[in-house]
């Protein structure tokens, strides 16, 4: 599809550490992935696997404070996001890369009208008058299908439902025509029926505006629905990256395999609902070797060695030390 294009964002060896009682503890490390223009990358993994930390560090919200540090590169339109200064960061945020967060109920400022909040983000990046910005805000609200946007622009957030607030946040995100959107579990806090509407809206926005998107989720079903490519995170690392169809058809890493096996539709095809025993390690006790090994049923003694994410075919990478030799064991 978009294989020929150069990546819009190319993250390499991203590592975010925090000072934990005087020792540097990596929350995420050796995170590398890329996103091409117009492409949607799903970032999947269990709670605590480092999805938000990765996204936040790209936006400059993580790794820059006291007691945190950051290394690696994140090439985006000729710049390294991890090395922008405050001013560059502010002019990038909401303008070239926008972000939508998980909690629509708390993500809007209760003291300001929503139209004003959207317009405020427009006026930071575009030289327009307050009145023009307000018009543009109303347009953006229209675009995300908020009914009677002109009237609703003068409402306060508490006058909106959760789904409507998420629409407002999406309107905010697209108001400056960014080339990339990071959506961190944008539907997790919403009712199931509303989730579907918001996903449909995001899909529509990304197609209409040619947005590249990093879509963070727990939900493999959502990945199948809206993502082109997929990066699976486990314990602060990406364990597998690749095209969604190829990965679903033949997962290369045992962890991905287990995640997919847990999906009801796939599980029923395989005849069982399978789960991974144990729980993921905390950043303070990540194993030195393969981090999934303690929970992996294909583990060998050699799995104690450090791992790297290796490209196994164009556009597909795998971190499993056993490559795909573990697969034969699955059939038995």
């Amino acid at each position: 599809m978009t294989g020929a294009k150069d990546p819009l964002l190319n993250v390499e060896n991203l590592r975010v550490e925090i000072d934990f009682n005087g020792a540097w503890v990596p929350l995420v490390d050796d995170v590398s992935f890329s996103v091409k223009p117009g492409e949607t990358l799903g970032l999947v993994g269990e709670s605590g696997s480092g999805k938000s930390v990765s996204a936040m560090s790209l936006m400059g919200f993580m790794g820059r404070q006291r007691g945190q540090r950051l290394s690696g590169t994140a090439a985006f339109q000729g710049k390294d996001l991890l090395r922008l200064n405050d001013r560059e960061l502010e002019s990038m945020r909401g303008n070239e890369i926008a972000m939508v967060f998980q909690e629509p109920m708390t993500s809007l400022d209760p003291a300001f009208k929503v139209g004003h909040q959207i317009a405020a983000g427009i006026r930071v990046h575009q030289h327009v008058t307050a009145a023009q910005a307000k018009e543009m805000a109303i347009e953006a609200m229209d675009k995300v299908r908020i009914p009677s946007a002109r009237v609703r622009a003068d409402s306060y957030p508490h006058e909106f439902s959760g789904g409507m607030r998420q629409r407002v946040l999406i309107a905010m995100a697209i108001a400056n025509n960014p080339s990339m959107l990071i959506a961190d579990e944008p539907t997790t806090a919403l009712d199931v029926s509303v989730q579907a509407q918001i996903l449909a809206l995001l899909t529509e926005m990304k197609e209409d505006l040619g947005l590249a998107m990093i879509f963070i989720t727990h939900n493999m079903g959502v990945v199948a629905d809206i993502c082109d490519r997929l990066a699976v995170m486990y314990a602060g690392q990406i364990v597998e990256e690749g095209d969604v169809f190829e990965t679903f058809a033949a997962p290369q890493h045992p962890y991905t395999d287990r995640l997919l096996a847990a999906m009801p539709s796939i599980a029923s095809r395989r005849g069982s609902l399978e789960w991974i025993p144990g729980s993921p390690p905390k950043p303070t006790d990540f194993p030195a070797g393969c981090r999934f090994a303690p929970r992996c049923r294909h583990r060998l003694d050699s799995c104690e060695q450090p791992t790297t994410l290796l490209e196994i075919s164009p556009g597909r990478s795998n971190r499993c030390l056993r490559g795909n030799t573990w697969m034969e064991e699955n059939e038995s």
Partner: protein
Amino acid sequence: MTPTGISVSPALQEPKKLPAPAKRRVPLSGLLRSVGTRILRSLLLFVAVTITVFGLSALIPGDPAVSLAGEGATPEAIAAIRTQLGLGKPWYEQYFSWTNGVLHGDLGTSFFYHTPVSDLVMSRLPVTLSLALFAIIAAVVFGILAGLLSATRRGRLADKITTVISTVGIATPNFWVGMILLILFSLNWHIFPAVGYTPITKNAGSWFMHLVLPAIALAAAAGAELQRQTRSSVSEILSQDYIRTARAQGLTRRKVLWQRALKNGAPPLATVVGFQTAVLLGGSVVVEKVFSLPGVGTLAIDSVTLKDLPILQAVVLLNACFVIIINFATDLIYTVLNPKVRI
């Protein structure tokens, strides 16, 4: 949910039903009713205050007229006091005629000065109001600035220093602060005049110079309280999701602080400002005395020494009315500032 927290979405579908209608705003009558309730509450409070202030005369032991007139008073003086207090009539009649006078601006005649109390109070009021206004402006400006400084530098040196200063400010009585300022800035360094007052109409510069030290003394505790409130509410606000949203839109730290954080922090701050204004009015009594400012506070203290009951009653009544008005205004401002309460 499932053990690993991985779940599967239902198939995507186009939105079928229209989004839920927005919650309606509370109709205007709600606002009127809540303002009405507050006015009623203030009026009731006023009645309670008049009863209390009137009751002050009952606290005087023995024959109030004799003890008020003091030693060696002429029978005429005692009789005059007796008439003024309306002694001999039932208490409720005394109360109503006194209240009636109060409502018409008649606060009685001073036992000592033999002039209308209202004239005495009115001549002193500009001093006290200048002082209080000065002090509250200083407290608001410096308290909030210091609070913002600590909130944005939490745990760092600037925050620690500011917090130490404000803790001292809260713990130190205002007359103590006043005396230290007086010793340092007037007696030692001769920067400000030590005592006295010049009306603004005579010499604005001198008026200002005479008020600086007493205003600082009076403002210290209120400013410190405001620093604390600002620090705690602004640093809480800065950690909210909606601040992150604003930063993700590209808003600068400064914009977020001055526009978003301040507006969100305004309702609790307004409450503290209101309360501190009331406290500060009470504190002005002592501070005026320390700096020999001829204000209402000094008048009150003197009236105690002179057993000049009508003046004392007038001052207490005046102060209570200020507090009632301040509370009413604070409530109203809180309502206006808070969009969820606003109708």
